[in-house]
């Protein structure tokens, strides 16, 4: 049977195109022995459910964000300002880093193997109202931002001077439109263009967090695979990751451009401002999340990637 791959973006999105190329390569390399069915746009459920479905073997593969419900240590990659620029992102999240090894271990406990990482973007803030003092994290801006139901984002919004308001995603668009909240945090230019471009008047590329998705496969499915096929799959996955690292930065710039073309104003953020925001987030968010994950486990990993 064809391997079922779930992912979180609509058909035709960059990630969808990239995955189709990957699937095609594997199918060719294995002489048609490995074939894939793609299920875009969360058709098999949102990433939290799909991760569990992979774990029990009901779905074979997925390319998606990290769901932390089963093991809160998986939050480690979601710490804000863990990486501040592209070279540091690659160092923190790339193959062979201590953080990557930790993630692979945690996934393995759920019988899930990480085939590749897919760097997506640096996060930013989408606003429907003019920004207030974006460079000064200590300035109380009086702006409410919709935060996703993820603890680090909720703490992040408050640590850099916004009022973080948890709201369900399905109500977020209308909430920005009517003014229940003034903007959104937790995604990047690509995500805002896809879901919020009609209500994004300003985009602040604050590099709030580095979004990484992982290409996951059920451990049993992988183990039962013919050795040669498995090698081809892993080889294609490695290529998939390498080419994405090469393309991600330009892709992000492209999405910022698309947001601007849709009428948003890009508000530049200086290096000093970024550093100040990062300082606040690290001081206020990190201790809390690290405590949740277990100081003894998390601290050495965080220290080793941020040195």
């Amino acid at each position, binding site marked *: 049977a064809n391997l079922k791959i779930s992912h979180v973006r609509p058909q035709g999105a960059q990630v969808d195109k990239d995955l189709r190329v990957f699937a095609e390569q594997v199918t060719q390399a294995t002489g048609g022995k490995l074939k894939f069915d793609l299920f875009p746009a969360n058709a098999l459920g949102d990433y939290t459910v799909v991760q*569990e479905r992979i774990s029990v073997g009901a779905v074979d593969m997925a390319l998606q964000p990290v769901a932390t*419900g089963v093991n809160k240590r998986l939050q480690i990659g979601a710490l804000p300002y863990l990486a501040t620029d592209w070279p540091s992102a690659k160092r923190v999240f790339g193959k062979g880093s201590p953080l990557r090894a930790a993630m692979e271990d945690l996934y393995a406990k759920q019988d899930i193997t990480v085939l590749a990482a897919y760097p997506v973007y640096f996060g930013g803030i989408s606003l429907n109202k003019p920004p207030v003092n974006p460079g000064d994290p200590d300035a109380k801006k009086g702006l*409410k931002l919709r935060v996703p139901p993820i603890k680090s984002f909720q703490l992040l919004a408050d640590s850099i001077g916004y*009022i*973080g308001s*948890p*709201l*369900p995603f399905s109500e977020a668009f209308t909430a920005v439109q009517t003014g229940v909240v003034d903007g959104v945090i937790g995604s990047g230019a690509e995500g805002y263009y896809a879901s919020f471009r009609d209500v994004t008047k300003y985009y602040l590329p604050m590099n709030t967090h580095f979004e990484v998705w992982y290409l996951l496969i059920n451990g049993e499915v992988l183990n039962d695979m013919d050795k040669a096929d498995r090698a081809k799959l892993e080889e294609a996955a490695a290529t998939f990751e390498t080419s994405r690292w090469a393309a991600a930065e330009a892709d992000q710039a492209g999405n910022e451009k698309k947001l601007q073309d849709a009428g948003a104003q890009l508000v530049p953020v200086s290096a000093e401002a970024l550093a100040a925001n990062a300082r606040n987030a690290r001081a206020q968010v990190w201790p809390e999340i690290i405590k949740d994950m277990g100081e003894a486990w998390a601290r050495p990993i965080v220290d080793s990637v941020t040195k």
Partner: protein
Amino acid sequence: MMDRLFKIVLTGLLLIVAFFQAVQVVTRYVLEIPMMGLEEMLIYPTLWLYVLGSVNASREDSQIRANVLDVFLKTQRARLKLAVTAEVISLGIVAWLTWWGWDFFRYSLRVWKESPTLYVPTFYSDCAVFIGLLLMTLWTVKSLIKHVRVLAAHNPSLDAEVNNG
């Protein structure tokens, strides 16, 4: 007694949900310090409300049905037979679903997933599926027994009156 219990529990769950939502409006709009984790806590009473509401529908024998065939049957006896048939089938299906509810119960107990910000175990709502389906199965058995008894005691000669009436 049972009716009273369901009245209190269902009303209580609904009011809790309403109260939590209203609190969020006040904390966000008036106080400007929205409470973290309130929406994830809402899910627990909500899911229990859905499940227990459905259990009560089974108890009251008021699950939604579209018994098209019933309309065409002439005699009370035929209707009773149809009701028994439908209940036997229902029992088979709900028992099978309950088995899978049990499977989900054990799974949820094993992985012990937690909510994203307050780390409350989702088992506390997940277990509702199995418990609810089990109760629905039991009430289906009860209503099947009731209908079989009525059918056994049914006097076919009464049908003429039903039809004329």
